[in-house]
């Protein structure tokens, strides 16, 4: 095991998969110069016909990926910031999601989409919004987000090998988070669709991902001192979603808090809540409680800091379901 950052783990995934398969390539804007460090040094190794920079033209840029995937290649398309995917939204949701199924399911579209997402830079809404919930609403696209360097490397590798379109953003707030990953050369993947219990516990189940997972783990440490035992589940994938792991945990805890850095209305948190209610009503001793962004555009400046889910809000939600 070595200790590396989440963003370096993502880069290792690209490198290993591009070495393994000639058809894997990346397209984005300013990725050769590494506007975010997940693409640092890649152009030197793979050349600028596999690390492809385009004009500021998101539809054309995404079109490189879409057309090449139809031609049997395996593109990774980097939107830079998650919100920029909205600039070519019809293609990257509807066109992409319906391609396989609507055509009678003869050919799939192995496109990986990625982008930095989330708050923390105080840049406001269009540079701070989450996109996993929006993509999870649109069928035919897998959606996942890693929370640790280990998961990041393994999940990006799984996404690149997946024959379906996968949207896998990474949270800018944990880009420099360090963690253990296997030695270089040890090939591993973290399968999409499998949740991970990041901490075992017995009193309450907390579902959280990415930056919010880090917050939740901190809160769990603190509550442990009071004798409150939190089980922390990282969904890792939103589509497909591993509901079973959550239900199993609820058999023990009977209480669920879902933390989701996204607007409450239409959030993935709500999807979890609704499904848990339908599939596990009798398991619940308290209503599923959600910690999300309030239904307002994410403000920039200092105001960002206290609109987002914080350890304090997570703690309060946990205390509420335990009350």
């Amino acid at each position, binding site marked *: 095991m070595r200790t590396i950052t989440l963003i370096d783990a993502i880069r290792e995934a690209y490198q290993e998969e591009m070495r393994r398969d000639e058809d894997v390539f990346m397209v984005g804007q300013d990725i050769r110069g590494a506007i975010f460090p997940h693409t640092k040094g890649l152009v030197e190794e793979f050349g600028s016909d596999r690390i492809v920079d385009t004009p500021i033209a998101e*539809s054309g840029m995404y079109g490189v990926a879409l057309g090449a995937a139809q031609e049997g290649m395996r593109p990774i398309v980097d939107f830079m910031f998650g919100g920029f995917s909205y600039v070519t939204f019809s293609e990257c949701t509807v066109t992409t999601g319906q391609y396989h199924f609507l055509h009678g399911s003869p050919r799939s579209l192995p496109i990986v989409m990625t982008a930095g997402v989330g708050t923390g830079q105080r840049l406001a809404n269009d540079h701070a919004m989450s996109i996993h919930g929006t993509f999870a609403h649109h069928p035919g696209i897998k959606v996942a987000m890693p929370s640790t360097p280990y998961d990041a490397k393994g999940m990006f590798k799984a996404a690149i090998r997946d024959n379906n379109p996968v949207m896998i953003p990474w949270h800018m707030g944990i880009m420099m988070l360090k963690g253990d990953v296997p030695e270089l050369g040890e090939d591993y993947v973290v399968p999409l669709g499998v949740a991970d219990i990041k901490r075992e516990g017995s009193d309450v189940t907390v579902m959280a991902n990415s930056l919010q997972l880090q917050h939740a783990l901190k809160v769990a440490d603190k509550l442990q001192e009071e004798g409150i035992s939190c089980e922390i589940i990282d969904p890792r994938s939103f589509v497909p979603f591993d509901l079973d792991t959550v239900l199993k945990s609820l058999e023990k805890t009977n209480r669920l808090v879902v933390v989701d850095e996204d607007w409450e209305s239409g959030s993935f948190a709500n999807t979890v809540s609704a499904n848990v209610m339908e599939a596990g009503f009798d398991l619940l001793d308290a209503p599923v409680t959600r910690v999300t962004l309030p239904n307002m555009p994410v403000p920039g400046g200092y105001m960002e800091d206290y609109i987002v889910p914080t350890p304090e809000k997570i703690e309060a939600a946990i205390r509420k379901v335990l009350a």
Partner: protein
Amino acid sequence: MSLNKKQMIKLFTNLVRTSHYDKMMYRRMMQGKLIGFYHPAEGAVAPGVGACTFLKKDDNLNPHHRGHGIIHMVSKGIDVSTFLAEHTGKETGCCKGRSAFHFHYPDDKVYQQSGFIGHNFAPTVGWGYAAKRRGKSQVVMNCSGDGSYGEGRAHESMLMCQNWQLPVIFFCENNGMAIFSSSEEMHPTEDISSLAQGYGMPAVIVDGQDVFAVAEVAMAAIDRARKGKGPSFVECKTMRFNEHDIGTPDLKGWEDRSEEEHADMRKREPVRLATERVLADAILTQTKIDGIHEASLKEIEGVEEFADNSEICLPSEEELLADVFVD
């Protein structure tokens, strides 16, 4: 480039075939025997025939939505029996009856018919990229209407294809109309192809009622692209004889298109023009021509029988859900 006799016969044959196909689609729609809608191509069959008759199997094709691509696909040599089956919602359809008009012939390099106008342009860059990267002499024939060039995606695609000198033909079938909107009103210059100037992309304008003229410029553009000389723009001036899609009124702006306009248009019906030409040039006799019509009608009868004798399949929701993703 000038066409030889064999090429002219092939073009003429495809023109006859495709115009019968279009009529068949029209007839069936009127009979309530098609799913969804149909955008008739009458008056505008020559561009697609000219663009596609000499494409190779490995060339990428984006068929124009007018005629739902049948003109282009028949001309390219694609078996369209599964196309009609799809348009009738049958299990034997090219998309198992799930798609209405969104056909898919990946082996023949037809990947999509988007319901969003202008959504042909973005993946065109990717097809061109793949062709170039793999060093194959594959070309991309990207056919769409004048209206589609309103979309910003057209710009992004032309820009990027010219940057990278991709083997792409921007083949614009300008019928002067987009639903009720005239291109005079919706485009600021006389020709859509003036856009190409902005990118330094070569462009040519051709009489889209003359299948032979279209084929000559299309072949030159294909040749150019195949030789690695980059993209070009072909604008065909063509016509729409009927309403936009069957059942929609036939307006310009908000007024009926005039009788005169219709009468004028009909004078330049492409099959008639081509027939006059092949007779005048003694390329074909009237007997041969009659034979071509008969064979076409026969072919289409077969396609209709295939579709009509196929089943409607109604899989369970579980079966469908299992088909959303592959393993």
